[in-house]
């Protein structure tokens, strides 16, 4: 493959291996060198009048504390509780999501796709790492990794199995490759036995992966789903 023409013969598998390991931990081999490179670039761009370092701190804080998958979870929980909102979300996701205050960068053109007993939706960007930042925040490492981007379109059931998700053979899998500026949010199925939960309690069950399509929303347990499966929410 032309992708690998630059690898000297024999180093190919090593490079792929390094990449796979690396995508996992993203612990670069030369952390110090990278640190210095980034610092140098930031300094140069600041000196040339392009960057205000104080703004960088605010950007980082925004994606660490305000813009993350808890936004998307609120959208989904609202759709589960409010039939009118659900209809709006499915017909004009950008406007419906904006009504909850989530707008802007990498969420300018939103489409929501609904999982049903018949259809399971899965979102990928095979060409880069397009992801609905406004509702899900920064993409996880695996979403940007070569194995996910390569396999999601061709072997979705194998990919889902890697996330511990096994779907009935009769379920149609619908894969959305985000090749333009449309950003997709999966509206997962509401689990049975959650009829009496509040919107807020429902939101805590909804995982990031369920809104990409690589996970399902589990039934509420005493430990409450999202904390275990989803880690610390911003």
């Amino acid at each position, binding site marked *: 493959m032309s992708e690998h023409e630059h690898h000297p013969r024999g180093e190919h598998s090593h490079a*792929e291996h390094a990449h796979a390991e690396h995508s996992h931990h993203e612990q670069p081999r030369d952390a110090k060198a990278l640190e210095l490179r*980034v610092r140098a670039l930031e300094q140069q761009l600041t000196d040339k009048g*392009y960057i205000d370092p104080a703004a960088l701190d605010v950007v980082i804080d925004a994606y660490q504390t305000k*813009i993350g998958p808890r936004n998307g979870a609120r959208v989904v929980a609202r759709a589960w509780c409010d039939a009118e909102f659900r209809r709006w979300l499915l017909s004009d996701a950008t406007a419906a999501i904006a009504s909850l205050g989530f707008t802007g960068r990498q969420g300018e*053109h939103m489409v929501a796709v609904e999982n049903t007993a018949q259809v399971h939706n899965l979102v990928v960007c095979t060409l880069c790492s397009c992801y609905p930042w406004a509702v899900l925040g920064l993409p996880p490492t695996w979403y940007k990794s070569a194995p996910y981007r390569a396999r999601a379109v061709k072997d*979705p059931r194998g990919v889902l199995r890697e996330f511990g998700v096994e779907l009935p053979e009769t379920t149609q899998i619908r894969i959305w490759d985000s090749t*333009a*500026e449309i950003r997709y949010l999966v509206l997962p199925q509401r689990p049975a036995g959650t009829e009496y939960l509040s919107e807020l309690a429902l939101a805590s069950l909804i995982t990031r992966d369920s809104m990409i399509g690589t996970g399902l929303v589990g039934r509420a347990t005493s430990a409450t789903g999202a904390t275990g499966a*989803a880690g610390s929410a911003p």
Partner: protein
Amino acid sequence: MSYHSNADLGGQTVRGRIVPEPEGELFHAPWEPRVMALVVAMGPTGMSNIDMNRAARETLPNYRDLSYYEIWLAALEKLALEKGVLSDAPPAPKLVLRANRVAPVISKGSPCSRSPAGPARYALGDRVRTIAAKPAHHTRLPAYARGKVGTVERIHGAHVFPDTNAQGLGESPQWLYTVAFEEKELWGAQEPKQHSSISVDAFEPYLEPA
């Protein structure tokens, strides 16, 4: 001049597991958030547009050996040099992002929808064939979906055309469609059957009537 994207991965044989990650795990080295923020902050300066950024990233010769934030860093360094930003007489930035403008700039975003130059050529349900040619520039039709027959499922209005925008040739807005394919059309009769269909978002110049 030949152009090759190292980022067009759909359907390729790639080794390595997919490793799930907890929600709160955003960065894996202290420099990564800095690179993310630099990329966000360089947007308003007008140094480059999103399609130029993608072209710069996908043509990195060592793309496949880099982590995603390393890709962003290398492309940012490359563009800053190419666009003269690091020269002795850098062009004036269109806007410098200040701390108090971060929230409004993020929540405004950069919509890509534009007024169409003419009526849409295709309607919902139309059968279309994607072009087979591999253009000699940045494009957003993945290789696995070239020369394939699918169905128009959604129409999104006219959007900035990445193929021209990436080359600095203007936005030349084009109608954008979601085109869905059966798995057999893309991959042949693969076993085990996935029972799946796959869509791409395709600009009108990528399509011909089937």
